């Protein structure tokens, strides 16, 4: 009897369902046997009980499940509201703001060099750029969100090729910017 001669009519739905259950049972059996072999080997090779020590140590390092505390029992947002004193400018800065502030303050990090390069480029191109740069600095120092870097990038593209600043070409969302820009007329 060739296999190709057989069709679905050989197995009706109940038989198919029974076959499905048999296949499932086989798979579960495989999983159980796999576990047995794994455990047996671990026992014979001596590494099955490696994660257990004396009762006291086990208690010491038990997983902690309390609110406000991580699984080691440490408080994890303890330093959120602390303030640090910057060694460079001696200002008191919030801990979460400290790293970006230090980056700008010490003149290191990606954006500081970008700003510096921009300053160099624009001081070569524009005459009135000097006073404006200081305004840029102050504003950058006070606002450490990513929004300020976006504004800084926009300014760079505006200053690009030829024309000096015209208020109509400035697309800043924040009205603060238009106040600091002297009228180029």
């Amino acid at each position, binding site marked *: 009897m060739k296999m190709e001669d057989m069709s679905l009519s050989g197995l009706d739905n109940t038989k198919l369902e029974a076959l499905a259950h048999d296949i499932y049972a086989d798979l579960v059996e495989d999983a159980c046997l796999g*576990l047995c072999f794994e455990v047996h080997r671990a026992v014979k090779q001596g590494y099955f009980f490696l994660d257990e020590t004396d009762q006291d140590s086990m208690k010491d390092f038990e997983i902690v499940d309390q609110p406000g505390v991580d699984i080691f029992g440490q408080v994890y947002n303890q330093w959120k509201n602390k303030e640090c004193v910057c060694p460079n400018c001696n200002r008191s800065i919030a801990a979460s703001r400290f790293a970006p502030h230090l980056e700008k303050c010490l003149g290191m990090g990606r954006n500081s060099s970008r700003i510096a390069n921009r300053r160099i480029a624009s001081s070569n191109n524009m005459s009135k750029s000097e006073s404006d740069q200081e305004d840029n600095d102050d504003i950058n120092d006070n606002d450490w969100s990513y929004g300020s870097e976006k504004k800084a990038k926009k300014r760079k593209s505006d200053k690009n090729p030829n024309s000096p600043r015209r208020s109509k070409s400035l697309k800043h969302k924040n009205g603060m910017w238009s106040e600091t820009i002297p009228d180029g007329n």
Partner: protein
Amino acid sequence: MHGNAMKRVNMSKESQMRAAINQKLIEMGERERLKELLRAKLIECGWKDQLKAHCKDVIREKGFEHVTVEDLVAEITPKGRALVPDSVKKELLQRIRAFLAQHSAL
């Protein structure tokens, strides 16, 4: 006797069908995939950890110098079968049925 002979022929047709399907299951790699799926699900739901804890009891009882594979199989397998969560069983049966629906027409 004629009836019994007919029964036997039909039975062997059925068992040949089953063998053919099982062979397809293996050859197409689906059985291996199902095996991996089951293993992953059983770990995820904590089944493996549960049974491992049970193993520890068996081993302590039999003494771990002397415990054999047969000991473990006898103690673990029935419990293992019973502890599979319904959701896992459902999902696997669904996939198996889908395979059978697609491939049982030869």
